[in-house]
């Protein structure tokens, strides 16, 4: 839904809002101008009519009806739309002179003004038009009406008005289309930034956004994000360093305790206490192993050296792991099926890759029920990435926990008490996968757990990131 995304984007909404405000403002301005011009037009019109009435009155006073008739006839030569029309009636309302038909139906306006419509011969055909008129009483009681046609002014105004509104609609349309494209361009840049950022956060927090391609505020955003990544990384390193130091420093006293205990056991102890001491030694060993695993994960995560890496035949490693775990699986009646062709290589460290698959198969055996089935499959995807799937028939991992299980010491509540382990196995798996520029994902095997490990094949160029 790219269109929908653009339409709901901030930039597009901003542009649309801006356009609406702009159009409304222009519209109001036009309306004001229209009102102003029509007001001045009518002002001038009425003034000229008053003057004309006065002129007629003067002529009537001096030359009586005959003079007026002469005057009106003189006016006929000017164009029909821009001249005055006259009607002189006697006191009974009968037409005496003028070119208007007798007594049309008037509409009374204020201050002695009247208006009416009458048919006017224009270009040979009668057109119903509006007139503004002013009646006046002449000296001898006769009535005079001077009228002027004003619809042409309206027409012109309407023409201007409609063309302006059309222009405005066009502006609005073009603006929306332009806004759509500029919003989608912005969105693309932001989306690109989003993708980069999420890739960095998911993958290698040591990477930074490329600011060279960005301009303007996107660049500023990239700078800020890079600063945030810097801070995040240093915080993460700080936390890691603290936990590493703890693990490192506690190893010394713990080993000493362990050695003292084994010295104690060697001295002649009673059978029961000797068993207790053995128990404690085993627990010390567990703890030491946990510390070592923790340090190992940190070393891998911090490690950018892939120096001296070799070609590793993933298929062969998988067969070796399965061979190693087969007796353990057989004890629970579990069958391990393997479908992994040899000669599918990746660059890396065979021991680490072995460790990774061993941890996964170890988990699969540990969590599978008796007489379960474990399947190991390897495929090569079109982009030279090897995809290894290890699927079991155990209880699986709830979708909500699938991300968390990679965290150090995270264990699903249900497995905390039931199965042994220090909660570092999958952390190590992920550290190894990422060390080899690969990834690991968990999914459902309906039922059971499906682990998908992806490792880049050897034809892929290896970019070592620092």
């Amino acid at each position, binding site marked *: 839904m790219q269109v929908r995304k653009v339409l709901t984007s901030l930039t597009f909404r901003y542009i649309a809002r801006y356009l609406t405000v702009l159009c409304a403002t222009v519209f109001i301005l036009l309306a004001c101008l229209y009102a102003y011009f029509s007001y001045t037009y009518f002002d001038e019109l009425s003034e000229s009519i008053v003057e004309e009435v006065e002129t007629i009155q003067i002529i009537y006073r001096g030359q009586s009806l005959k003079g007026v008739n002469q005057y009106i006839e003189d006016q006929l030569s000017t164009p029909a739309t821009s001249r005055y029309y006259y009607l002189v009636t006697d006191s009974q309302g009968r037409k005496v002179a003028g070119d208007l038909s007798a007594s049309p139906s008037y509409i009374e306006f204020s201050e002695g003004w009247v208006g009416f419509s009458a048919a006017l011969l224009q270009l040979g055909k009668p057109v119903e038009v509006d007139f503004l008129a002013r009646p006046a009483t002449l000296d001898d009681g006769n009535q005079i009406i001077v009228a002027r046609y004003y619809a042409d002014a309206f027409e012109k105004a309407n023409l201007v008005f409609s063309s302006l509104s059309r222009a405005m609609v066009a502006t609005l349309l073009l603006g929306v289309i332009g806004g759509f494209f500029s919003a989608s361009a912005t969105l693309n840049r932001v989306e690109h930034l989003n993708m980069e950022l999420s890739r960095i956060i998911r993958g290698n927090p040591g990477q930074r956004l490329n600011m060279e391609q960005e301009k303007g505020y996107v660049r500023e955003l990239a700078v800020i994000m890079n600063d945030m990544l810097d801070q995040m990384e240093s915080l993460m390193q700080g936390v890691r360093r603290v936990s590493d130091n703890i693990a490192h420093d506690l190893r010394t006293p713990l080993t*000493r305790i362990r050695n003292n205990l*084994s010295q104690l056991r060697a001295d002649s102890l009673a059978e029961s206490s000797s068993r207790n001491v053995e128990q404690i030694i085993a627990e010390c060993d567990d703890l030491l192993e946990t510390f070592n695993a923790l340090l190992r994960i940190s070393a891998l995560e911090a490690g950018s*050296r892939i120096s*001296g890496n070799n070609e590793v035949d993933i298929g062969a490693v998988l067969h070796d792991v399965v061979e190693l775990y087969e*007796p353990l699986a057989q004890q629970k009646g579990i069958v391990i099926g393997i479908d992994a062709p040899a000669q599918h290589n990746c660059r890396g*460290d065979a021991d680490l890759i072995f460790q990774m698959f061993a941890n996964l198969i170890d988990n699969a055996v540990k969590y599978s029920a008796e007489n379960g089935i474990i399947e190991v499959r390897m495929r090569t995807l079109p982009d030279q990435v090897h995809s290894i799937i290890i699927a079991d028939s155990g209880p699986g991992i709830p979708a909500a926990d699938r991300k968390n299980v990679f965290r150090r010491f995270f264990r699903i509540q249900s497995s905390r008490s039931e199965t042994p382990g220090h909660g570092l196995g999958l952390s190590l798996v992920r550290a190894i996968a990422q060390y080899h520029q690969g990834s690991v994902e968990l999914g459902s095997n309906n039922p059971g757990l499906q682990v998908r490990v992806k490792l880049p094949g050897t034809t892929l160029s290896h970019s070592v990131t620092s």
Partner: protein
Amino acid sequence: MLGELNNYWVKMNILLVEDDLSVGDFVATELIAAGHACCHKTNGEDGLREARSTFYDVLVIDRMLPLIDGLTLLKTLRNAGITTPALVLSALGEVDDRVQGLKSGADDYLVKPFSMAELIARLEVLHRRSSSPSNAAQTTLSVADLRMDLLSQKVWRDGKLLNLQPREYKLLEYMMRQAGQVVTRAMLLEHVWGYHFDPQTNVIDVHVSRLRQKIDKDFETPLLTTIRGAGYRLGPA
């Protein structure tokens, strides 16, 4: 450690060359606590001088050292005709350099972090191998009444032929070569399966107990014993 190894325990004179003080002090202290003598040097030059001037039973050398790196140090020693067995320590991620390390004259390789039990077991194996030179042309191995013919790949106990799977045979062969020594699970994985890694569960124990079934079940004296917290030992108790 002293008790576990009882009569097989021998005091070793160890030279440790490690620049990381926290690791170095830890290892040195633990070696001394385990009853060995340990001299700790923190750079390649001092280490080389010390190894040349004094006799040691085994050397523990870190791969990355200031002044002279671990592998160069080792090569120099070997060129000078000093054949003291040496174990090289390396950080994780340099694991691939194992081959290079072994070419430079290292006898064993251990990746940090490691457990002291692992280090000590390996040092003891190295020391014993050097102090009782094995016959290269050996064709049979024997431990108590267990006998292995390396040419026909057959094993007898008390004159009775045992039926071993190829992997069990390799496992037994390695343990017979290290008879009387503690071998750790990591050492077994390394030599029998060819991988350096830390199993999370008792996967090795299953293999060993299968082997034990075959070599000890019908006989009175058990030969394969589990050493808690360390590994296994093959040999009469």
